[in-house]
């Protein structure tokens, strides 16, 4: 029985690795990888993210002045409108759509929602 459990767990993990490999071969995931690399390498974006992180820290340590708040809003707007960030978000969304489609295929076989996992019966929402 223990061997069967182990074999079956190994089979699940092997199929998981094969699934990951197949996902990585899609243009959707390849585009996301490239977008993530560009985001990581973009000095302007990284510097704006650094500004936001510093402000978040300052906020936790006792709030921000109105001029500092203005700087935060400015950094947020610049990040939102940055082309590299927009491309990254669009690529991530496309991966999410692909994930949803694969989740439907898996859930259909299992008869329950795999991606969301089974919610507790204690939870009535």
């Amino acid at each position, binding site marked *: *029985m223990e061997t069967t459990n182990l074999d*079956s767990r190994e089979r*699940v993990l092997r199929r*998981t690795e094969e699934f990951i490999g*197949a996902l990585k071969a899609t243009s959707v995931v390849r585009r996301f990888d490239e977008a993530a690399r560009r985001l990581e390498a973009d000095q302007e974006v990284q510097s704006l993210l650094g500004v936001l992180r510093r402000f978040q820290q300052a906020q936790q340590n006792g709030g921000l002045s109105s001029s500092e708040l203005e700087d935060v809003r400015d950094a947020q707007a610049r990040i939102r409108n940055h082309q590299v960030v927009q491309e990254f978000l669009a690529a991530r969304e496309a991966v999410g759509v692909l994930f949803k489609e694969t989740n439907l295929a898996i859930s259909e076989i299992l008869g329950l929602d795999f991606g*969301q996992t089974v919610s507790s019966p204690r939870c009535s929402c």
Partner: protein
Amino acid sequence: MKLSNTQRATQVDEAVAAAMEAARALGRALGESPVFQRFEAAYEAFQADGPARRKLQEFQSRQQELRMAAMWGGADPHQQEKLEREWESISKMPSLAGYLRAQEELMALFRQVTDRISEEIGVDYGAACSPSGGCC
């Protein structure tokens, strides 16, 4: 070698089709696992246990009422404690206890799989598949 647009589109479709087939193979492996089989058996046993199901439904409806009261600022901490005690009692009912154990085991397996996918791809699988960010 340079690929034409048609060749590229075919390759794209093939890669997505292969990912979908790999997803179905994963679904089948999960479905055939003893963990999943135990969960199904425990679920059926719980469904067949009328009194346990009724108790759980009553509990969930009281829980919902309490949640609504909390939203309107009228939550009674004693009622909350009472509900906690009630859960302790009904979760010991054999069919529900068996179902909860099997569910926990299944969730652990599912999490192991989705965590691995999320880690390798760099996007949270569970969050991407959840329409509202999961349960409350």
